[in-house]
C-alpha cells in the first residue's frame, strides 16, 4: 500500500535506498579484454558467474544488450573492441535456471521485432523465470541495421518514438488480455501505419503481472516516452548534480503524463573503480583506462569521425591536421556516433586538444572513458558518496557496467555492498521473488476502460 501511495503521489518522495543492476555489455570498449583475468564473452560460465555474483550482492537486475548488426569501421567489422554476444532472451532463459531472485532484463528493439512475437517471448521469459523478466525498450531506425531483417529499413528517424509507443501499447494490451488465471484471453487488434496485429494471446499473467519496462532514450522525446510508458529509466546522468536535475525533469514529465511523481525509477549507467584506499583506486583507474583505450582504439575513434584511415598518425602525438573526408559520421559504430558534423567537430577537437596539451590517446580517453559515469575511490568514500544520492533521491540505483568479465563485480559485492548496508541505504535481503517486488513497483493493473483510453491516446 505504501508503495502504491508513493507512486501516485504528486510530490516526489525519496525512498532513501539504492538498488543495483549489472549490465553485461558484450559490445563496447569499456570491457577490458587484454588483461590476464579477462574471460570469455560467450561461454555460459561467464554469464553464470556475473549473474550469481550479482545475486549474492542482492542486485535487482541483470541486463543484456541486443545485437542487430555488428558495428563497422571504415567498411569492415570493428576489430578492436569486445564483440559477439548471445541473444538476450535465450541467455536470460538459461540464467533463470541458475538464479532465483535477480531480475532478467532483455534489451529489445521495437523496429526489428514484431510486437505479438516479442510480447509473447517476453511473457514467456517472465513465466519461465517466475516473474523476473523485464524489457529494456530501445528504438532504431537506420536502414543499415535493417539489412539483416525481412522488412529492411522502413522507419523514418522522426517516427521512431511514435512507432515505439504504438508497439509498447500493443505489447501491454497483449499482456493485459488474459483476464483471469484461467483465461481465456481477449483478442488484440492493432492497425497502424507500420504494422497490423491480430492476435489472441496465449500466455497468462506472470507472478509480477507482466514484464517490467525499462527505457534508455535520453532525448526529450525519449524522456517523455519513458514518463508515459516505463517503470524504470536507464539514464545517462550519474553525476550528482546532473542526476538531481534529471530527477526533477523526469518528475515533471511523469506528472504531465498523468502518472505519479515517483512512478518512474531512475538507474543511471555507471562504472566503479574501487580499492581499499583512494591512492590504490587512482592507480587502478590508470590501469583500467590504459587497457580500455589502447593506441589502436584511440586512432580508430578518430577515424570514425574523419571517415578515413589515420594509421600514419602517432597515438601519442597531436590530433591530425588534415580534415575529415566525410560531411557527417555514419551510424555503423552505433547511434552515439551518428550524424555528427565531421569538420566542425574536428576543428573543435583540435583546438581543445591543443589547448589542454592532449595527445590523440589522451584526448580520446577523455572523451570515451565514462568520465561522468565512473565512481573512483575507496570503498568507504564511494559508499558515502552513494549514500548522499540515496538521501536526496537523486537516483533509485545504479546500473553497473563491469570493466572485467567475469570477475568485475567481486569488489563491489564483497566490499561496497556491505558498506552501503551499514549505512542503511542498500537492501539486506530480497523483498520478494519477482523483479517488480524487488524494485518496489506497483502492479500495473489496468481496467478495460483504461486500456481503451491508452490505445486512443497512442
Amino acid at each position: 500500500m505504501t508503495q502504491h501511495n508513493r507512486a501516485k503521489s504528486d510530490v516526489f518522495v525519496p525512498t532513501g535506498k539504492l538498488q543495483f543492476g549489472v549490465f553485461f555489455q558484450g559490445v563496447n570498449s569499456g570491457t577490458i579484454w587484454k588483461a590476464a583475468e579477462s574471460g570469455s564473452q560467450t561461454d555460459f560460465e561467464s554469464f553464470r558467474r556475473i549473474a550469481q555474483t550479482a545475486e549474492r550482492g542482492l542486485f535487482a537486475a541483470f541486463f543484456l544488450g541486443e545485437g542487430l548488426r555488428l558495428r563497422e569501421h571504415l567498411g569492415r567489422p570493428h576489430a578492436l573492441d569486445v564483440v559477439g554476444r548471445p541473444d538476450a532472451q535465450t541467455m536470460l532463459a538459461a540464467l533463470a535456471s541458475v538464479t532465483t531472485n535477480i531480475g532478467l532484463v532483455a534489451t529489445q528493439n521495437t523496429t526489428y521485432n514484431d510486437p505479438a512475437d516479442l510480447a509473447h517471448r517476453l511473457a514467456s521469459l517472465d513465466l519461465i523465470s517466475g516473474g523476473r523478466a523485464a524489457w529494456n525498450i530501445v528504438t532504431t531506425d537506420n536502414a543499415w541495421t535493417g539489412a539483416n531483417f525481412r522488412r529492411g529499413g522502413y522507419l523514418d528517424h522522426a517516427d521512431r518514438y511514435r512507432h515505439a509507443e504504438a508497439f509498447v501499447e500493443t505489447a501491454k494490451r497483449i499482456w493485459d488480455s488474459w483476464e483471469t488465471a484461467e483465461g481465456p484471453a481477449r483478442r488484440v487488434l492493432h492497425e497502424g501505419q507500420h504494422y497490423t496485429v491480430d492476435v489472441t494471446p496465449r500466455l497468462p499473467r506472470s507472478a509480477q503481472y507482466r514484464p517490467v519496462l525499462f527505457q534508455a532514450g535520453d532525448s526529450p522525446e525519449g524522456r517523455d516516452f519513458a514518463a508515459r510508458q516505463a517503470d524504470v529509466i536507464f539514464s545517462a546522468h550519474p553525476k550528482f548534480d546532473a542526476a538531481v536535475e534529471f530527477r526533477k525533469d523526469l518528475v515533471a514529465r511523469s506528472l504531465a503524463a498523468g502518472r505519479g511523481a515517483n512512478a518512474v525509477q531512475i538507474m543511471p549507467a555507471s562504472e566503479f573503480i574501487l580499492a581499499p584506499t583512494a591512492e590504490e583506486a587512482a592507480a587502478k583507474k590508470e590501469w583500467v583506462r590504459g587497457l580500455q583505450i589502447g593506441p589502436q582504439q584511440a586512432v580508430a575513434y578518430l577515424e570514425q569521425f574523419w571517415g578515413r584511415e589515420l594509421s600514419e598518425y602517432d597515438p601519442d602525438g597531436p590530433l591530425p591536421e588534415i580534415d575529415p573526408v566525410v560531411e557527417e559520421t555514419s551510424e555503423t559504430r552505433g547511434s552515439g556516433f551518428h550524424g555528427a558534423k565531421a569538420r566542425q567537430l574536428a576543428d573543435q577537437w583540435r583546438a581543445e586538444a591543443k589547448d589542454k596539451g592532449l595527445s590523440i590517446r589522451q584526448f580520446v580517453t577523455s572523451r570515451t572513458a565514462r568520465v561522468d559515469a565512473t565512481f573512483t575511490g575507496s570503498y568507504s568514500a564511494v559508499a558515502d558518496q552513494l549514500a548522499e544520492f540515496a538521501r536526496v533521491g537523486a537516483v533509485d540505483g545504479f546500473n553497473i557496467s563491469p570493466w572485467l568479465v567475469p570477475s568485475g563485480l567481486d569488489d563491489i559485492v564483497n566490499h561496497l555492498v556491505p558498506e552501503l548496508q551499514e549505512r542503511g541505504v542498500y537492501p539486506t535481503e530480497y523483498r520478494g521473488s519477482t523483479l517488480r517486488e524487488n524494485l518496489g513497483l506497483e502492479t500495473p493493473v489496468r481496467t478495460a476502460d483504461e486500456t481503451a483510453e491508452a490505445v486512443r491516446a497512442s
Partner: protein
Amino acid sequence: MSTTEHTTEEGRAGFLAIELDGAGWDGGDFASLAEAVLAAESAGFHAATFADAPVPGRTNALQRAAYAGPVTRSIALVPEVDTVHTEPFHVSTQLASLDYVSGGRAGWIATAAESSEAAAAVGRSSVTGAALAQEAAASIEVSRRLWDSWEDDAVIRDVATGRYIDVDKLHYADFETPADFAGAGYSVKGPSIIPRPLQGQLPVLAAASLVGEGQVPADGVDAVLVTAPTPELLAAEIRDVRRRLGASVAVIAELEVVLDSRGQAAVERLAGSGSAADGGRARYAGTAAGLADLLESLLVEADGVRLHPASLALELDELSRLVLPELRRRGALRAPVLDGTFRDLLGLTRPASRYADSSAAIAAGN
C-alpha cells in the same frame, strides 16, 4: 555394458528422443520443466524435444530448451522454431545462443506453420502449399550461413596489434531469397552477432514431408522425422524416406506411447482419455516389454525414435524402469555421452565454416 559389446553393437545402436510437451504436459508448472528434463536425462534419453505449436499456456520452446541447458549434462535439447512467421536473423542467433548455454547440445526442429492466426499476429498474409517449404528452406539457409559467418578462430585477442577479432575471418552472409520465392522476398546481410556455435553447425531436423525435391533440400537438414499411421507401417516408410533422401540424412521415427501403468492397462487409459492419434502418428499401446521389442526392431531401420508419451510423468516412469534398461541390455541403445554434442549423437563430424579458406573475407571499403 562392456566396451567389447558396445563396439560390436555400435552399428545398430540407436538413440531415443522424448517429446516433453505432449498431451500429458500442462506447460505451466516450471519447477516441473527442470524436473522433467532431468528425469528424461537420467532415464537415459539422448534428446528432449520442445513443441512450439500455439497452445494456450505454452511458453516459447526455445526458451524452455535454454532453461534446461545449464541443469543438464548429456541430453540434447531440440526446440521447434517456426520459419514462416519469425525473423531468420533472430532465429539464427537464438539457436546459436542455445548451443552456448547447453554446451553444444542444441538442435533445431525447423517447422513451417500453415496458420492464418500466426500470419495475422505479425500482419502478414498466410502462407500455404509449396511456399511453406520455400520459407523453411530460406530460413534454414540464413541460419546456416550466419552460423558460419564467424570462422572458428575469429576471436584472436591479439594484444600486440590491439585486435580482438581477425576481420578476415568474419564474412557477410549476403542471403537473398530466390527469384521464384512466393512470399515477400528478403535479404540478410550478416555477419552474425554471435561467434560460431560450439558445434559449428547445429543439427537441423524437419518433418520428412517438408524435405525433398522442390521443398527443403535434403542437404539443408541433418535428420528427418518420419511418421506413419501405424507402428507396422513405420519400417516401410523409413526405408522409403531413406531411398528418397539418401544416406546423408538421419531418420528419426515418430511414435506415440501409452503404457500399462500403475495397475491400469494402456487400453483403459486410452479409453479414459478419449484422445485420437495426433496427425496420423503411429501409436503403441501396451506393455513395457512389447514396447522394448517394437523399439528394438524400429532402431534397426531408423537412427533414432522420438517418443510422444501420453502422460509424461506416467510413461517416463515406466520407460526409465523397464524399457530403456531392457534396450540397453540388448545393445540397442547408444551410451549417452557426458558433455557430448548433439552432432556427436547423430554421428556428424564438426564441419569447417563454408567461408574458411575462401577469399571472400569482407573486403575493405566494401
